[in-house]
Structure formats: structure tokens, C-alpha cells
């Protein structure tokens, strides 16, 4: 009559990661469908900006550890931030073009 094994029956973080990964992949697949061609480039650029999420990872690596590691993380932040900021601004500029003329 020992219940502990069941309560402790959590999978490893790696497997949890895989579960989360697979679910998110399905969402991504379902999300995009029948995009008009004029949105292909902005959509590409917008999702490119989102892939800059690696900025979170760069920040998390940047505060401690080895000097070499922190230096790498420093450049990681620089590149990821450029990706994020540039990506969103460029997408916004492109999309502004498609709006009605009153906004100009």
C-alpha cells in the first residue's frame, strides 16, 4: 500500500519539453492556412521577429557562469535584440503600406 511512486510519476523535463514542443507544432500547423499572397512577406517577417524569442534564452545565460559563456551570451543578446526590434519594425512598415491612405 504505497502511493508515492504514482505521485512522483513525473516524466523528465526533457520529455515534458517534447510534449510541449509537439503540441506547439500542431498549433503552428493549424494556424496558417490560405494566406493571401500579398501577406506572405509580412507574415514571414513577422514570424521571423517572433523567433527572436531566443532573446529570453540569451538573457538567462548572461548573468553568471564562465567569462567565456557570458561573453557569448552578450553577443547573443545583441543579435537577438536586433532581430526582435528590427523584425517588428520592418513588418510594421510593410503592413502600413497596405492600409488605407488616410493613415498617411
Amino acid at each position, binding site marked *: 500500500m504505497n502511493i508515492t511512486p504514482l505521485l512522483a510519476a513525473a516524466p523528465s523535463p526533457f520529455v515534458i519539453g517534447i510534449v510541449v514542443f509537439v503540441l506547439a507544432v500542431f498549433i503552428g500547423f493549424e494556424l496558417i492556412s490560405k494566406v493571401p499572397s500579398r501577406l506572405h*512577406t509580412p507574415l514571414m517577417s513577422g514570424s521571423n521577429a517572433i*523567433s527572436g524569442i531566443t532573446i529570453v534564452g540569451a538573457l538567462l545565460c*548572461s548573468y553568471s557562469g564562465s567569462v567565456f559563456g557570458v561573453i557569448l551570451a552578450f*553577443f547573443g543578446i545583441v543579435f537577438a535584440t536586433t532581430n526582435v526590434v*528590427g523584425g517588428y519594425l520592418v513588418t510594421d512598415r510593410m503592413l502600413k503600406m497596405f492600409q488605407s491612405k488616410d493613415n498617411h
Partner: protein
Amino acid sequence: MTLAILGYDLINLLYLLAAVLFIFGLKMLGRVETAAKGNAVSAVGMLLATVVTFFFIVDGTWWSILWIVPALALGGVAGTVMAKRVEMTQMPQMVALLNGFGGIASLLVAAADYFNLYGVSGETVRAISLAGPTYSLTIGLAVAIGAITFTGSIMAFGKLQGVKWAPDQPIQLPGQKWIVFGGLGLLALMITFLMIWPGGWPWVLLMTLVALGLGVLLVIGIGGADMPVVVALLNSYSGVAAAMAGFVLNNYALIITGSLVGSSGLILTNIMCKAMNRSLMNVLFGGMGAAPSGAANASATDGSTPQGTATESSAEDAAIVLEAASSVVVVPGYGMAVAQAQHAVKEFAAELENKGIEVTYAVHPVAGRMPGHMNVLLAEAGVEYDVLLDLEPANARLETADVALVIGANDVTNPAARHDTSSPLYGMPILNVDHARTVFVIKRSLNPGFAGIQNPLYFQDNTRMVFGDAKKVVTDLVNELEQI
């Protein structure tokens, strides 16, 4: 302890919120009416994720702001300047460049975590071994995919920008296919080594070098005009690289968001391929194999020698016919972009509209060299959104149009795509300009376009060629129309 766990819980719930914002943002980006808002929604998600992480870090180790803030500032300024300076016609290469930055960032994150772990303890190997072989696996994948994304994107940038170290033509080394497969095998081998000897940091550096080379090799073999699809695919890769970095750090924000971008990017790549009538496989395997890769082999292709005779005409004659029409459909193509003729075209349309002639634009999904190329240019010139017709309404309109005016478009108007099964374009949906009463084609010669094949349209009875640079001819048309 309890508080710390609540802290991680809260952070992860906020990351989840950010991911939800990305999901909504991506969905909204797929519809014209909501696209701009969707981009803003996703930007809010990114801000949230970044700010949360920033405070989490700084709360623990305040002194780290000494290098974190400069790094953020540097990236922010660089991104802003790039985004503001770039011209509308250079958007694709801009996206490619930024995408490369995302790739190298994921590479750096994985490497940083590895060397941080390495540097922390005297008992290095034990520390890394404890993290398990899956740690080494994801380190390897993040580094490899990140590196391939980086150099691949830089090459794509170069080809789109037209710099000389990245020639527009596809460059195929002898046995390139095998070199690529060999490189991939080598990477797999090195990742396996790292899993067995997690302390072997030289493998990480070596792996990076091999993957960087592979990225160059994969893209150098593809023609410049295929780059938009390549960039879409590399965008998907950069998502996967971020997800792998997420596995390294056990961070759900990175895993969720990275895989979202990875899979939605793959779908977008697929959609773009379909619009160009090419298979995803063809692109997935680096453009190696069958299809003719762009203009390079143009003169070699059978169809490129003229068949029959084309009837030439002048701007003056064209203006007379146009003036007598009641409905004109303008069909822009790559040539309009090269000649930067969009403003002249807008002026020309205004001239016709003044005379009570209805002008619409038939925009093919792959006209030009990037998706939405024509839309961006015409929008820049101030053409109203509602006169830009997509493929189907455009073809309906062409059935009854008096004049179809083709300005620097070629492949997207090739009637061979409809019936000639031997044509490389066969099966691609095209604009049926040949169904209009009269067709005027503005281009410099009878030379073929991107696909490198001749266009039977030019030898039709109802087609008139007006040879010359698009901008010049259209400006001439405006002048002629003013005089009538």
C-alpha cells in the same frame, strides 16, 4: 523555497501568456484586415517575455545590468536603424539578414549555457554529465541548426542584395549533393561524440564551423530568384533552433514559441512553393536536383528561341488604343520593379481615369521576385488597395477587358502554362492576359524571364510589343495621353 517556486511558476505563466499572444498575433497576421494589429499583439508578447526575464535576472544579480543593458541598447539601436533605413524594395534581404541574426543568437545561447556549465565547477565533466545525454543532444542541435540558419541567411541576403561575394546564379560544386550529405553526417557524428563525452568542448566549436560551412553550401547552390522561399524555410529553421535552445535551458517560452515558428514557417514555405508551382522537397533539399535554376541557363533552354514573329508597336500607337478603351488591366511584373516604374504607372493610371477609363491591376502571387512584391511597390506609389486584383478576380476581369497592359511581366502571363505539358511552367496558375481584346507588352527585348523560356503570348495576333525600359515607355505613354 516556496516563494522561489511561486516565482518560477509566475514567470512561466507569464511566458505562457506571451506564447498565447504570439499565437493570436500569427493568426491575425494571416488576414489583411488584422495583420498590422496582429504584429502589434505579438510585439506585446515579446516585450512581456523580455521584461519578465530581465527583472528575474536583475533581481538576482543586479550587477549584470552592467553588460545586459548595453547589449540590449546596442541591439535595439541596430534593429531600429536597419528597419528605418531599408528601402521597401529591399525588404526580402532585410528579413533574411535579421533571420540570420536570430539563428546565430540561438547558437550563442546554447554555446553560452554549455560553457557556463563548463566554467562553473572544477568537476566539469561531472556537472555536464549530470545534465544527461539529452542536454548534449539539444546543445548539438541548437548549435548546428543555428549555424546553418546564420550562414544560409547571410548567403540569401547577399544574393538578394546582389553583392559580388554571393552571385545570383546557383553555384554547384562537383558532387555537391554528396558534400552536403557528408556534412550532415559529420554533424550527426559529432553530436553523438558530444553525447558520449559531454565534456568534449572542442566538438562544440568544430561542430559550429562545419555547420557554418554547410549553411553557405546549401544556399549557394540555389538561384537568386528562389531566395524568398529559402528565406521562409530558414525562418522555420531559426524557430527550430530557438526551440532547441529552449530544451537546453528547459525554458518553455523558447520551446513553445520556437516550435510555433518552426511549424508555421514550414506551412508558409509550402504555400509559397505552391504559388510558384514547385515542390517543397525541391526546396527542402536545397534546390538540388531537377528544376531549372533561374535565368542562368536561359539561353540553353529549348523554348528560348523565338517562334513566329512578334508585332512591334510604339508608345504613340499604344496611347491611341488605350484612349479608346473603356476598361484597362495593368499587369505588373519583375521588369516594373527593376525599372522602378511604379510611380510612372500610378501617374499613367490617373491619366486614364481622368478620361473616364477604368483601370485595375492584375497582381499574380509570384510576380516579381518576392511574394507581395508588386503589392508593396504599388502601395508605395499610392495605388489604392481595392483596385489590386488577386489571381481569380483578375482573370474574370481580363475576360472582358479591352486592353491588357503588361509592364515587365513575363512568366506569369505565359499561356503555355495552361496547355503545354512540356513547359516547365505547366500547371502554374497564370494571368490569362491573352483573353483580353488587345494586349500591349512593355519590355526591353524578346528575352525570356526568370524561368528562362519563351512566351508564346508575344507572337499572338492581338499582342503588340512596345520595346524599351518600363519606366521610360510608361512615361512616354503619359506624355502621349496628355496630348490627346
